[in-house]
């Protein structure tokens, strides 16, 4: 079995993993980091999105064995002391209802704002097209990402 060393949310782990084990199951079932949910089995929904070395990936599409030597950030490790501006903006803009898509939506937005710090509404919608939400109709999600972008731009 492959042996991996990985930092998840700032903590170092070393584990033997079955070759077929998905990253999302490693996070949930082995590490108990259940903040990352699973919404589909075809990598359409994006609920399981995490940051792998700073970039968003769907953790159902990555094998645990592939993350050896990497840094993984889940929704549980995003806040540094205080909430990330996107976490605040999602609450402020009522960008979540059931909240199941929210971890993935926020982490995909983190990546979006890294490469497009001042996105138009259109760019936000296209940037998040790999993340499905069934509750909000996306309007308040767009609003939240816009708000966070403004705040992050102002503090940068």
């Amino acid at each position, binding site marked *: 079995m492959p042996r991996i060393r990985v930092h998840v949310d700032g903590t170092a782990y070393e584990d033997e993993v*079955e070759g*077929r*084990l*998905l990253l999302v*199951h490693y996070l*949930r*079932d082995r590490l108990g980091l*259940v*903040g*990352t*949910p*699973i*919404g*589909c*089995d*075809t*990598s*359409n*929904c994006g*609920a399981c999105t995490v940051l792998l070395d700073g970039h968003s990936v*769907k953790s*159902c*599409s990555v*094998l645990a064995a592939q993350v050896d030597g990497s840094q993984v950030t889940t*929704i*549980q490790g*995003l806040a540094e002391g205080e*909430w990330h501006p996107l*976490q605040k903006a*999602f*609450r402020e803009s*009522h960008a*979540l*209802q*059931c*909240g*199941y898509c*929210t*971890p993935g939506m*926020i982490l995909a937005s983190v990546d979006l704002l890294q490469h497009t710090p001042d996105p138009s*509404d259109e760019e*936000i*919608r*296209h940037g*998040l*097209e*790999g*993340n*499905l*939400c*069934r*509750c*909000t*109709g*996306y*309007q*308040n*999600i*767009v*609003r939240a990402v816009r708000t966070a972008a403004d705040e992050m731009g102002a503090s940068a």
Partner: protein
Amino acid sequence: MTEDIDVGAVATLVEDSGEMGTPDGTREVGRSRRRKEDAKLVTGQTMWTDNIQLPAMLHLAVLRSPMAHAKITRIDVSPAMSMPGVVAVFSGADLKDELGSLPCAWPVTTDMVQPDHPPIAYDEVRYVGDAVAVVAARDRYQAADALEAIEIDYEPLGAVVDMEEALKDETLVHSDKGTNKAFVWPLETGDVDAAFQDAPVLVKRRFIQQRLIPTAMEPRAVVVHPVAAADEYTVYSATQIPHVLRVMLALSTGLPEQKIRVVAPDVGGGFGSKLDVYAEESIALIVAKRLGRPVKWTESRSEGYQATIHGRDQIQDVEIAADRDGRIRGLKVDLKADMGAYLQLITPGIPLLGASMYVGIYKMDAYRFSCTGVFTTKTPTDAYRGAGRPEATYAIERIVDELAAELDMDPLELRRRNWIQHEEFPYTTAGGLTYDTGNYEAATERAMELFGYDPLRAEQAKRRESDDPVQLGIGISTFTEACGGAPSRILGQLSYAGGGWESASIRMLPTGKVEVVTGTSPHGQGHVTAWSQIAADALGVPFEDVEVLHGDTKSSPTGWDTYGSRSVSVGGVAVHLAAQRTVEKARRMAAHMLEAAEGDVEFSAGTFSVKGSPEAKKTIQEVALATFAAHDMPEGVEPSLNAEYVFDPENFSYPHGTHLCAVEIDTETGFVTIRSYVAVDDVGSVINPLIVEGQVHGGLAQGIAQALYEEAVYDAEGNLVTGTMVDYLVPAAPDLPEFTTDRTETPSTSNPLGVKGVGEAGTIASTPAVINAVVDALRPYGVNDMRMPATPERVWRAIREGSTGGDRAAEGTIAWGGSQTATTAGAESGSAQ
């Protein structure tokens, strides 16, 4: 509209009792409070059912039938027993004596055909996805692996997927019943024959409500924790209905109800799909009982697309009779509703929830409705957002547009001539319901202002004249619906097995904080926030001091749960009334403490004072502490400060609104783009405008998705062709427009808060608004109807053939990609999920 909502204007509409309000003098009801629920959701500290890990817990995987209809001639589970990590494997025959039939709580007619519904099939399978065996193993991968070792032989019995084919009774879904017809349910008011005889104008259409897959983002899951020695069972389920589930599990398995505790932990959306009692809930309970160990089952998305209920799937034959001046004389509706292979919890009742709503907001002399329930070899249908009312609203709003076209009259003008005027309420419709309040004029006027109706009509004329390749269509939907389910008396009249009341209790804690216990079971609606606002106002305590307990039959023992936009108008009202009852008890204690007559004690913003001596006062927190210590109680008042209220409404509430949609259609590609969408909803008084706006947005998304994107397609052999998220198009952000929303407020008189319900309004209104816009754009091409979803292919064909775009299933094509480029990299590696 994205601007902030005028909170002040909203608050003034709630009748001021003179006693409500928080200690700082502000009103909570009507404020756009940010949600208490969100902190855990945005930080990943949620307790979804699949997050639950218990000592020695086993994972269940369910083997499902790949055949739509077959006899099980042989099943051998023993090869799976020796697979790594496997603890037990059961076939249907192994468990059949302990698993009762899954319940259907709505025998809509006395002669309804109600087939046995075993949670695991043991002799015959009747749809692709029917459970046939279950594995319990140490982890989810091992459980999934073991499924492949089970040996099973089937003898095909023939699929029947089309309702009209099924009604020929050539292939029987349940051969022992002798028919595929589940029931026929009629309703008639007025003299229908007179209304239609000699009617100057008759318009007839057949509308198809395609099959939809609800797709709540959280897949279903269930965890059962048995305490074998005590014969006690805690069932955690991703359900909308923990209270109903508890009763039904007791009835179907024979386990004593008091030994079963049901918990709905954090639940990630439902839209009706978790308003059910499912095979896996019974299976998990009985397997946990057998093994004496906790078990967990979590569906994969593709598994859920087969094994979780579907919605809609109806054929509507609709005919309207009118005079030349546009006055509607009568309406006939002949409905066929696909039940699927079995009757789930309220499957037969779903089409009937719309039975009285086909008349919409219009006055007419006569109405005839008949619904035939039909069995097919497909996944059972049941409640999906709106449940019966979207279908009814679609039919009436579409046929009214067709009538307008026939009369060459503006469709808004035709509606105006027929709708109930605001001064005519309460109004008993030809559907037999009494609408309490409404103001269709006000909502329509506001919507037209925001939409720019006249300029858009002018632009449409210009584009038509110039033969512009991009044509413009305008769609109208002036809808109403019935919420506040339900007066228990009416449910009884409709043969529903359950009631429709809701319970709430208020517990003032010794420290002056408050626990609200509710029988509603939220899964995204924000009840913790909204119920806190209601209680804070009535008790005069800070919003932050209120906690809301729900979704656990141990802490919240009674209730009818959350569905059908019922929660605020039944459960929220119960909270309000329980809080008022608490204040009345506190008033007696305060009078005793202040040595005043009870009638002289006034209550305002959380403080009791004596009329005429304003210095003599006690806060409700002081009173709560005094009742806790109970050293000196007045005669006849029991210690502790709490109260309960069970509210059973007298009538439904009737949200309404006017939705206007403008679409642009590229006539060369058939691609439909929503250019603008205006929704003006009247949901009565509003507790939290931010939450209301969010509910409308999400509702619109699902209604638009039915119009443009989603369809569950079966092939002739009964295979679900759109069986994964790759093939079933749930819209993503680029597929939906920016909505303009606003509200008018006509308080309901069916309850003391004036609230109506908002969960389904957007979905009910938007589907016909979009399709009316599409048909309006294409009318010059000879198009007078459009099959849903209005995919580019269908629209393109309709333009060329002057047709409805045809039947996608028959054409053998499947879902289209919209703007999404599905990434399928995980498909091959995700099999064990």
